[in-house]
């Protein structure tokens, strides 16, 4: 693909999808902080999935090797 093709496609693109940069109607029209606050309040205090995975792995290990329970308690 030569430079002429690239320029032509670029020109077609800019004609079909005009740039948004610098357009007056592209400004944010309202303060989004109230919506952000709602999102923060609605969000549960989630536990990351890898914490659950670690817990499950530990439970499985202790189920197969109950002898490790006293060792674990000793180290806690």
């Amino acid at each position, binding site marked *: *693909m030569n430079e002429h*093709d*690239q320029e*032509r*496609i*670029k*020109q*077609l*693109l*800019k*004609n*079909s*999808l*005009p*740039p*948004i*940069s610098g*357009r007056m*109607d*592209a*400004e*944010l029209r309202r*303060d*989004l*902080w109230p*919506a*952000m606050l709602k*999102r*923060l309040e609605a*969000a549960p205090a989630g536990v990351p999935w890898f914490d659950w995975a670690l817990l499950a792995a530990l439970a499985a290990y202790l189920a197969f090797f109950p002898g490790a329970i006293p060792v674990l308690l000793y180290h806690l």
Partner: protein
Amino acid sequence: MPVLEQPSDVLRQFSHGDLDAFEALFRRHQCEVYSWILRIVRDPAAAEDLTIETFWRIHRAHARFDPARSFGVWARRIATNAALDHLKTARLETDLPGNLPSPPLPDPGISEEIRRKTARAFCRLPPKLKVAATLALIEEQPYKEISEALGISTGAVKVRVFRALRFLRKELQRQGIEP
């Protein structure tokens, strides 16, 4: 509520999880983040939702933020990822641009049909190529800024733009348009 006068104080307090600092940063950067996302997704409603999503991700990642670095650059990168995720999940129909009012047509030599076909070809671009092409070819952002926002090298951005151009040429030729 303590007065947050110095930006560096705000950044440090934000990294420790302070909500007031987060609010100050939100208010300072929301327009910039929205504007950046709008350039990528070209849909004001989606851009507003994605601005909230971006700041939600920022809030969750506060402990990973280094106050010595630029908050704006970090926020822009998270915003780009959020916009990219949106493009990946958005259906082709809803992905068609056109929610913004059309400005005066700059080139009357290009027919409406060609413009429509070009827009359709653009919508078929894979999301990663679409973001690079939008920012580089349509919005004409500097490659350095695009590379920072995408978290890749400038060379990698140029490769994506070239691949996007090649894809578009094939799509246009398939639709009977010889660029």
